[in-house]
Each structure stands twice: as C-alpha cells, then as structure tokens.
C-alpha cells in the first residue's frame, strides 16, 4: 500500500461526510474497513503504471456530495426500463438507494433470495462472502464503495436451484443540483449447481455530473452457471469506475458481457479468479464511444488451477475524439496446466482524432497451456464499403451497416431478447447519429 505523503486521496473530491450509520453489523464492518483504506491510499495519477493513459479530470475537477445533499430530481415513470422477461425478478436502486416500490421479486423459486442486502446482514452467505472477494491492490475505488455503501443487491441461490427468468438489477441515476457519488453494490452467491442470468444495468436519466462506483462480487460454488450482462448507460457527463469480480469453484461457468455506451469517463476492471480446476469463463466487452468519452478496461483473467477454458473478446468502436484503453491481463499460475485461454481486442476507429491504446499482457508460469491473444486497430475496410456501395447503398449507409455488423456479434451473446433488442437500438442510434 503506498503511503500518502502530501498526496490527494479520494476524499479530496468528496464533499460530504461518508455515512456510517448502517444498521447491519456486516455492512458496518466493511464500511469501516473501506474508510481506513481510503484515508491512507493515494488517489491514482498518471505516474501509476495502470493509470498512465487515462485522464481522470472528470473526477478530480469535481466535488461529489452524498445523494442526500445533492437535491436530486425525481425519476418519473421508469416502466420503459423494465425488462418484460424480468417483470417479477427486478431490483431497482435510485441513486444507489433501494426502491422497494419499483422492485418486484414475486417470481422466485423457494429459498432463492433477491433483495436489499441491508436486510440480510445476518445471512450466513453475507457474513461469509461480503467483501471477501474484492481484492484490488492499492485501489481506492473498491474501498470507497466499501466505505460508503449501505443498500445493495443480494442474490442468493441455494444448491441445485435454477432461476429461469433473468434477474434485473436496475441502477437509476437522476438529475441533481449538485454532483453526487453513488456506490451500487451487488453480492451474488450461487451454491453448488445453481444457475441464473443477471442483467446489471446503469442508466443515467439526465445529462448531469455524478460519480458511480459500483462493486459486484460473484461467488460461484462448484458447478454453478452464471450469465452476467452489464450495461452501462450512464449520463454522458458521469464518471463510472467499476469493480466486478468473480470467484469460481470447480466446474463453475461464468460468462460476463460488459456493454459500455454512456459516461464521460468509464474505467472497468473486471476480474475472474479460477479458484479450482475445470472452470469456464468469458470476459467479453463492447465499447461504443464518441464525443470526448473515455472508456478504459483493465481486466484480469486469473488462472490459479489446472484445466480451465477462458476467453475474452473486447470490441471497441471509437468516433470523434473519444479514447479507448484496453489492458487485458491473462495470468496462469505455475501449476495451472492445461489452461486454454484466448483474448482478442478489436478496435474500429471511425475518426482521425479518435485514440486507442491496447495492451495484451500474458503472464504464464505453467508450461503446458494454450494461451493466445491478438489486438487489431483499423478503420473500416474500403473494399467492404465499396462492395455495399456498389449494390446501391449510399456510402454513409454502407459505413453504418458495417459498424453495426462489427458490434452485432457482442450483442447477440445477450441471451435475453429484450436486452438484445435494446442494445441493437443503441447500436443503431450510435451508427446513425447526426
């Protein structure tokens, strides 16, 4: 942990006292732990290797107050954001605060829990797993979430339980008079051979400045299968710094898909930890940015045991002056033999001013593995454009169709029809703007 000597901490950008009135003992313990870290760890700067490409100004030039002090606006009718497949498997958080009226969880198998974590402080799974998986070295963001969260989504699946409907975790951010911070949190515990699909969504309703710092923790016991889609549609002025992490036991499968559409600044650090043999996981991403958006993905695929399949397809489209950063680490420990891991980062640059930094990083200490990676940065292929153009499509339409096709592959992995539709619309909006 780097000591703070005349260096800024995250608290320098926070204008309110961080609350410490959580009623749950388990949450209070995590709050205190986080508090201790953020007071003592320096806020990252470009001198830190993992932060050298990213401009953090949209955080550091602001002061964020608590939601209570921000004079937030109302959220209006949110029903257009509800997924028809998840009408009764939905939790809604408005500016990080659980909203019971908008949530609906009547359609769950016996003993499955989908609810506000602050009401389940005494649950064994909470006591055992909350805050134990997140472990980001020298990090200030996960500890900030630790320090400040109270309400959170808690999903618990008992052994051999399958939840048919997707579980929708809807994080809504409203307009406000002042810039505010929010710390959404999600704890998922899937016991042996459980199965679920989680749609985690972040939506900014207005065009305001806020800081969204979510932490999601997924603990999958042996044979658990989880599909986790994360859709980031924050306000175009918001900053979003995410810490989604998953810990997998033997034969577990975890497939995650992160779609980045919104936010001025997006920093996502997905990590998947293989905690036993024979796991299978995906860390896919789709980034569609324009204007002056920055989207940065620093991922870790951490193979600690033998026999695992993992893959990562990170697709990026950059327009205008937007900037994408990708740093994909694949770790394979010394005894983690027979790992089959594949990483691909494909970047499509639509403008001259757009910027892409990409860095695959493989650290392999086992000798019998198959790990590969690739990164491409390119413009639209002129021959492809001409092919469509010669068939009667305008050049503009030809280009739109090709960008759409580039993004499509990632959208098709969603498995939930309404989410797929929603994303297709977003892709069309992105390709046909102006």
């Amino acid at each position, binding site marked *: 942990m780097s000591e703070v000597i005349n260096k800024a901490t995250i608290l320098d950008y926070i204008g309110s006292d961080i609350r410490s009135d959580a009623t749950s003992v388990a949450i209070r313990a995590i709050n205190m732990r986080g508090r201790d870290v953020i007071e003592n760890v320096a806020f990252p700067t470009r001198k830190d290797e993992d932060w050298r490409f990213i401009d953090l100004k949209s955080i550091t030039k602001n002061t964020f107050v608590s939601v209570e002090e921000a004079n937030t606006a109302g959220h209006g009718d949110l029903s257009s954001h509800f997924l028809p497949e998840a009408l009764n498997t939905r939790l809604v958080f408005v500016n990080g605060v659980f909203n019971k009226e908008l949530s609906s969880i009547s359609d769950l198998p016996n003993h499955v829990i989908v609810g506000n974590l602050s009401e389940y402080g005494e649950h064994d799974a909470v006591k055992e797993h909350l805050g134990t998986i997140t472990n980001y070295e020298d990090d200030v963001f996960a500890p900030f979430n630790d320090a400040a969260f109270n309400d959170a989504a808690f999903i618990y699946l008992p052994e051999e339980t399958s939840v048919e409907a997707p579980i929708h975790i809807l994080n809504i951010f409203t307009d406000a008079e002042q810039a505010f911070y929010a710390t959404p949190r999600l704890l998922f515990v899937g016991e042996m051979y459980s199965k679920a699909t989680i749609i985690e969504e972040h939506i900014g309703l207005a065009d305001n400045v806020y800081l969204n710092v979510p932490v999601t923790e997924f603990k999958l016991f042996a044979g658990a299968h989880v599909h986790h889609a994360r859709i980031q549609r924050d306000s175009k002025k918001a900053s979003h710094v995410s810490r989604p992490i998953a810990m997998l036991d033997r034969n577990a499968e975890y497939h995650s898909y992160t779609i980045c559409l919104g936010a001025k600044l997006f920093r996502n650090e997905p990590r998947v930890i293989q905690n036993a043999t024979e796991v299978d996981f995906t860390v896919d991403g789709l980034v569609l940015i324009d204007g002056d958006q920055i989207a940065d993905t620093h991922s870790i695929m951490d193979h600690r045991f033998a026999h695992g399949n993992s893959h990562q397809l990170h697709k990026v489209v950059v327009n205008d002056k937007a900037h994408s950063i990708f740093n994909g680490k694949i770790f394979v420990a010394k005894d983690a033999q027979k790992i089959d891991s594949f990483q691909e980062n494909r970047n499509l640059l639509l403008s001259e001013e757009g910027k892409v930094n990409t860095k695959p990083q493989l650290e392999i200490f086992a000798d019998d593995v198959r790990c590969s990676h690739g990164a491409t940065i390119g413009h639209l292929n002129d021959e492809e454009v001409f092919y469509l*153009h010669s*068939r*009667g499509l305008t*050049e503009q339409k030809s280009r739109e169709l*090709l960008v759409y096709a580039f993004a499509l592959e990632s959208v098709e992995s969603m498995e939930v029809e309404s989410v797929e539709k929603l994303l297709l619309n977003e892709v069309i909006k992105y390709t046909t703007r102006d």
Partner: protein
Amino acid sequence: MLEIKNLHAVVEGEDIEILKGVNLKVNAGEIHAIMGPNGSGKSTLSKVVSGHPEYEITEGEILFNGENITEMDADERAHLGLFMAFQYPVEVPGITNKTLLREAYNTIARANDREELDPLEFEDYIESKLDVIDMKHEFLSRSINTGFSGGEKKKNEIFQMAVLNPKLSFLDETDSGLDIDALKVVSDGVNRIANEENAIVMITHYQRLLNYIEPQFVHIMMDGKIIKSGDISLAEELEANGYETLQKELSLNGEAQ
C-alpha cells in the same frame, strides 16, 4: 445501352495510365466477352464502369442509356441498373445476404419510384430467386460471403444479380477459381437472367466460360485498349494460338502500337 468513349483512367493519385482509350458499345439483349491477358486493364475497366473510387477517369466518358455517368457515385450507377459481379467478392461478417439485398433492393426501388417490398414480401421474392443458383434457404441468413468457398462466393454474386435485376451487368472473372460443377451452376444462372431487355459483359481470361455462356461479341483487350473485336470465333482463335501470337500478328498488321 452502354457507350464507352475513348476512356482513359489512372489509379487515383498516381499517373500510371491503365486504361488508354477504351471504346465499347453494348446494346440491350447482347452478351459481350472481354478477354485479355493479366494486366491488360480488363478488371480495371469493370471497376471504372461501376464507379470504384480507386480510379480516376482522365479522359473520355461513359454513357448509360444516353446519360453521362462518368462522374456518378457507385450507388447512383446501381440505381440506374448497373451491376458488377466482383472478381474477389469481399467477406462482410455480421451482415446477412438477406439484409444487404433487402436494403439494396429497396434503395434501388425508391430511387426509381417503384414500390418497396416489406420484409415478408421480400422474403417471398428472394426465396423465388434461390433456384437460379441452386442454393438452399439457409444461404439467405449467412453473413455475406463469410466462410464461403470460392464457388459459393461467385454463386452469391450471380444470386445478387438475379435479385437486383440490373439492366447491365459486368461479370469480372466470374469463372476464375470455379470447379466444373460450380461453373455449370453459375453459367446456367447467368443464362437464365439474360434476356432481351438486359445486357451482360463478361470479363474473362479463358475461353472455357464461353462454352457455357455464348457471347455475340468478343473483344480482345491488351495494354489498356480493346485491340480487336469479333464474334465467338475470335475466342476460339485465341484459345488455339494464345495472346502472344495474336499480339504479334496485330503489330505486324500495324493495328497496335
């Protein structure tokens, strides 16, 4: 229908002339073949006619049904009824054949004040064209040329031609890389499309294709020009003696510089 007058073209941004004064006239109901050795400019000719931005026309003009299309964009030429079957059809992952063709068909229909087809009508229409190239229904939902064999790619070009129903088609080495079965399917498709209203220009290196699609006119292209025109017997002569003999013979007669 098509009249090319003294057409000169260079690669955009370079001054090496590739077309050095091409003259060609094609009427409705005709099938033409343009033959020539590699590098003679025959593929360039089809690209220039289709409006490829890689080339710049420095002299001459292209008239299509009396209208000067020399400066037109590729899509506008397509709207008028021009079509090029590519020598190397590109793969476009993520866009299905059906998506492209519906977009293309309706765009062309709009430009010509014809009725557009809704998805269901279009499905029926496109379905009815599949047997032109002996393809199954699944062909429609595959991404354009993605993972297609050489033969499938060429069949797809002919299929697109059947669906878009152009007035004039340039087939750029559609026979290259085809095995005999695929060649028969492709030729059969072209013969079914050809009628009194439309015209076809085949660009080819080999006489073999002409056994299956018989042209009324054969042109020999060399060094950026059409140096000799005739009927099918010209192709047969070429097959027997080769380009070199022909070239020598022509220069002896003073017909080529």
